[in-house]
């Protein structure tokens, strides 16, 4: 390898091309997959690992990329946040991957950010998150708050006439920030302070009796009430079971969830939950040819036709295809070239439209509101008329509403303050 590299350098290649030269010398292009396969997050992340392997497999069947085969490098960060950073470093430095697809929780993403910045690589992050971030090396293919939370609240306000709000979440950064944004948004819409109830619970909370009966009490003040749930992961199952048992019907107090997808419902008898809502950018029930094909491929790959598909899987589908397209456009896997090429790339999504990568490294997506059905699927009851561009910095928070992000030259800044005209203004 070393002699080859020297040879290439002697051949008069520019120093900046040296790395891509090194990659070109290998006969495969490596793609890193950084998802927990053990520990608490394995429940959600293992599926994404499998989805990535499937996408890479499919791409290789189509002849690979730039005339080379793709090779997946899978590591297991074991739901341990510092380990995410170590494994990311290993992927980039030791395995020399061209791009990494991974992370689920915000804290794991925050933990790997410095690594990607330092080693100048590319991360595709597929999960809906709280926003307030835009990094040159990270591409956010999940929903920003304006692509999920805000449209969901709008739907409840307009179509269900909700006037009283319970914001219930797990106690960590995503629900706290999302609820801060939602609270500011609701107040801006004229909802009074006493009509908003905010409640946080620990991770894995399993005793929901008090909270569900509090919600019931809060809902009996003569105004239509809804619950906006940012309850994460495992805690959802006991929460919905308690709702069902205490007889809270979706017709009376609907719950709209941002972290409950087909996968979470798979462990649950959804009969009593029919009509409760979720806001995503993709549902397995989406009636398009692309989606039907995706589901068939998935079932064939995982060899189990009961496995469901979900929104973060679609985000990886979009992200991976964007990366493929950008690499083809740039003609190299060199990170700088690909990062520049990615902005503006547009690929089909699974709901019948095209998603484009924006200068702030977020993508455009449709927003769908679905109602839970008895078979564990969602039925889309409302969708945005067009695509919604992801907004990294919320317009409803102090300190973030003046910020914009644009990674194109000449601005090249993730948090440009339009009030002061400086990059790296306030922001969190």
């Amino acid at each position, binding site marked *: 390898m070393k002699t080859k590299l020297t040879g290439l350098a002697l051949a008069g290649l520019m120093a900046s091309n040296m790395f891509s030269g090194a990659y070109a010398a290998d006969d495969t292009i490596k793609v890193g997959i950084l998802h927990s*396969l*053990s520990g*608490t997050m*394995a*429940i959600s992340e*293992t*599926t994404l690992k499998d989805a990535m392997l499937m996408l890479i497999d499919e791409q290789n069947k189509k002849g690979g990329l730039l005339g080379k085969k793709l090779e997946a490098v899978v590591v297991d960060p074991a739901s341990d946040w510092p380990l995410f950073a170590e494994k990311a470093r290993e992927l980039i430095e030791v395995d020399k991957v061209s791009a990494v697809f991974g992370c689920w929780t915000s804290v794991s993403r925050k933990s790997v950010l410095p690594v990607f910045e330092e080693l100048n690589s590319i991360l595709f992050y597929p999960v809906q998150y709280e926003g307030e971030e835009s990094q040159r090396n990270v591409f956010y293919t999940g929903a920003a708050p304006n692509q999920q939370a805000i449209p969901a609240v709008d739907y409840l306000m307009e*179509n*269900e006439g909700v006037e009283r709000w319970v914001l219930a979440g797990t*106690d960590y950064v995503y629900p706290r920030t999302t609820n801060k944004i939602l609270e500011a948004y609701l107040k801006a819409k004229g909802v009074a302070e006493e009509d908003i109830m905010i*409640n*946080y*619970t*620990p991770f*894995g*909370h*399993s*005793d929901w*009796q*008090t*909270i569900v*009966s*509090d919600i*019931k*009490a809060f*809902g*009996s*003040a*003569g*105004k239509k009430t809804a619950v906006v749930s940012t309850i994460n992961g*495992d805690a959802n*199952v*006991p929460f919905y*079971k*308690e709702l*069902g*048992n*205490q*007889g809270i019907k*979706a*017709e*009376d107090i*609907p719950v709209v969830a941002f972290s409950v997808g087909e*996968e*979470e419902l*798979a*462990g*649950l*008898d959804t009969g*009593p939950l*029919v*009509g409760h*809502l979720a806001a995503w950018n993709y549902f397995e029930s989406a009636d398009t040819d692309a989606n039907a094909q995706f589901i068939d491929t998935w079932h064939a790959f995982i060899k189990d036709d009961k496995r469901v598909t979900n929104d973060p899987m679609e985000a990886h589908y979009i992200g991976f295809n964007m990366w493929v397209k950008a690499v083809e456009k740039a003609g190299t896997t060199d990170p700088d070239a690909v990062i520049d090429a990615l902005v503006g790339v547009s690929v089909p999504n699974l709901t019948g439209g095209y998603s484009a990568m924006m200068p702030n490294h977020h993508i455009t997506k449709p927003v769908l509101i679905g*109602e839970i*059905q*008895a078979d564990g699927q969602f*039925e889309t*009851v409302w969708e945005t008329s067009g695509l919604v561009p992801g907004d990294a910095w919320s317009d409803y928070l102090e300190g973030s509403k003046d910020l914009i992000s644009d990674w194109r030259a000449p601005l090249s800044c993730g948090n440009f303050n339009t009030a002061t005209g400086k990059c790296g203004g306030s922001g969190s």
Partner: protein
Amino acid sequence: MSLLRSLALVIGLLVVALGAGSVPAAAQNDTESLRPLINALADGKYKETEKQIGDLAATGNPVVAPALEALSDGDLYFRKSDKQVFITSKSGEGYALTDPLTLESAGEAGKREVSKIKVNNSLRRVIRSALGSLTLMAADPKVRKEAAEAVFKAKDPDAIEGLDTAIAKETNDEVRLVMEQARAAAVLNSDRSDGEKLEAVEVLSSMGNRDALSLLIGVRDSSTGDLQAAAATAVKRIEKTLALWDNAQNIWYGLSLGSVLLLAAIGLAITFGVMGVINMAHGEMVMIGAYVTFMVQEVIRNSAPGLFDYSLLIALPLAFLVSGAIGVGIERGIIRWLYGRPLETLLATWGLSLILQQAVRSLFGPTNREVGNPDWMSGAFEIGQMTVTYNRMWIIFFALAVFAGLMLVLKKTPFGLYTRAVTQNRRMAASMGIRTPWIDALTFGLGSGIAGIAGVALSQIDNVSPNLGQGYIIDSFMVVVFGGVGNLWGTLVGAMTLGVVNKFLEPYAGAVLGKIFVLVFIILFIQKRPRGLFALKGRAVEA
């Protein structure tokens, strides 16, 4: 108004006709005349569907009720070829069709041949109130009561006339009461005179639950004069009684949480409390019990669906045996080499818990497994203004039964006697001819088996995932240490105390802070009483 009255009359007549048993020819023609209205449902989106439901309800003909019910349940489909609407049920790959009016079978259709008529929450609400008005005079008092409850929720002023007719005819006191309450709700929502509304406030005030409160608050905030004063008094009265009931509810929730803690901790009270083994893999025994329940249900679903309601009873002994056997294996394989070395036991069992978790993850996959609730575990009933869910109630009884059973085993059987003898004075017991190693293994197996049984119960309220046990291990240790190591009664009282304290803290401090307060409280308590609530006394403890 006169239209409505005649409608009510039609309903009345129809009910009489239906009640008589045979459907006269005229009514049959009537039924056929409804078909275009039903088939209209095949067209249009939510807005149109809402209007079509209104049209159907306006016929006042109870014959349309099954179709509306099916629509609400998402079982109403239309055939794409001729836009005929049918009630469907799954059969094989396709659907079995039922005529929505005559309720006779209408053949089958493939998955792609029919298309579902979509409903959303607001449509379901519309259907609910329409069905309510349509079935107010059904033959079955249960149906009439449900209808009245639906009308109550809809508080539709147009329903008052229908309710009046129904109330006049009603013979069942309980149903009549609900109808009167529904009428009161509708009156308050109408433009009737203040005098009538005052009467309605009176009715709701004596109803005294949250639904009534919700309505009365609305009246209080939107009216003037006497009516407002009456509503305000009623609201105050209801709030006062509800506050009392809230305390009862909190105690119940506390006992329920306590029973879950007791179940999780009681196995540990034996392995840790009686034997002194710090078993970090205790939670995984609970998890394995839950997975046994899952497998039992899986087998039942595939081969004997009729037994589903008994699945938990079948799972109980199996979970005990499986977890118990694994427990004996662990004791024989690992723990017996580490007696007297608590730190090493802790690390070894901690490692073991990770291995067990990952093993289950590899075997069953990382995702949650669905464990269904049998019918007798679902739903709730009301005591006064307090909601009691069946699953929680059974778990409380079950936890107490397990506790009593364990007490019996330890106090009344030879095995219990040996166990107590070995833990109190191992050498003396050995000298008396007790095979102490086997007693150790069996006692550990008993503790693990009980954990497995707990898993069966916890599968009803929590996720069945490889992480299930982790959530309970800390709480279990807390309960055992708080209650007093080595004392089963301590575990019982400790679990119930922690449960109730937690539930009284939660409304004020929130779930997160509540947990922290409880932890701080236990730490302080242990400072004062290092041996917990019920300390064992005697030389054995000092050794």
